[in-house]
C-alpha cells in the first residue's frame, strides 16, 4: 500500500533526535548554564567536579585543598541553589 493509498501524511523515518528534541536540549543547556552562572564560584566548581567530571568527594577535596566536610557542605548548598535557580529559569 502506498502513502497516497493510506491517506497518511508522509513521515520520514527518524534517524536521531528530532528538531524539537534538539531545540529543547539547547534550551535546557542554556538554562542550566544561566543557573550555573548565577551560582557563587565555590559552589559551581564542586558541582562541575562532582556531576560533570564525576570525581569522588575525596578527590575533589584533594584537588581543591579543602577538607572533605567543606566539599560536602558546598555540594549540598550548591545543589539546593542550583535546583532553585534552574526552577526559576524553567518557570
Amino acid at each position, binding site marked *: 500500500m502506498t502513502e497516497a493509498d493510506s491517506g497518511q501524511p508522509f513521515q520520514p523515518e527518524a534517524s536521531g533526535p528530532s528538531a524539537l528534541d534538539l531545540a529543547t*536540549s539547547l534550551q*535546557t*543547556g542554556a*538554562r*542550566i*548554564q544561566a*543557573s*550555573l552562572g548565577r551560582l557563587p*564560584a565555590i559552589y559551581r*566548581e564542586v*558541582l*562541575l*567536579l*562532582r*556531576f*560533570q*567530571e564525576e*570525581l569522588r*568527594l*575525596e*578527590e575533589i*577535596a*584533594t*584537588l*581543591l*585543598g579543602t577538607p572533605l566536610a567543606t566539599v*560536602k557542605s558546598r*555540594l*549540598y548548598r550548591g*545543589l*539546593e541553589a*542550583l*535546583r532553585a535557580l*534552574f*526552577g526559576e529559569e524553567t518557570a
Partner: protein
Amino acid sequence: MSGDLHVKAQRLIAEAQVEGISGGDREWLDQHLDHCPDCQRLASATDSALESLRSLSIPLPPALAGRTQLRVYLRAREIRERRSAGWAAWAACGISWAAGIASAPYVWRGFEWLGHQAGLPSLLWEMGFVLWWTVPALVAAAAVLLDRSDWKGIERGKNDVGLSTVQREDALDSLPHEARGPALCG
C-alpha cells in the same frame, strides 16, 4: 511529625545524589515519594537539573581543568597498574602452588633429615614442615597489606594531586602539554 518526614525525604534526595544512600533509605524514600507529590516534584527537579548538568560540556576554570585532567589520568593509570599487579599475584600463586606440590616430598625429606640431625622429636619437625607452607601465604598477606597502605597514602593525598614529587613529575612528563594546566606548570 509529618514535617519531619518531608525534611528527611529532602535530605535523602540530596544525599542520594551527593554521597549515595543505603538500600533501606532508598526504599523509605521511594515509598515516601509515591505518596508525596511535593517531595516528588523536588526529586524530579533535582534529577532534571543534574541530568542537564551531566549532558552538557561546561568548561572548568583553566587552573582547575589542568588539575582535574591530571587526576583523572592518574586514576586510570593506577587502575591499570593495579590490574596488572593483580594478574602477577595470581600467576605467582599458581606457580607457588605447583612448585609446592612438586617439591613436597623433597621438603618432607629435608625436614626429616634436619629433625634427625638435631635430635628433635618427630612431632616438632612435622609441625615445622606444616608451618613451612604458611610462608607463601604470609608473604602474600604482607604484600596485600603493603599495597593497601600505599593506596590509602595516595588517596589521602601527599600533595595537591595526591602524589609524591617524583610520581607527579613522572606523570606530568607523560601528559600532553595542553592537559597540564597553568596550576601544574607553575
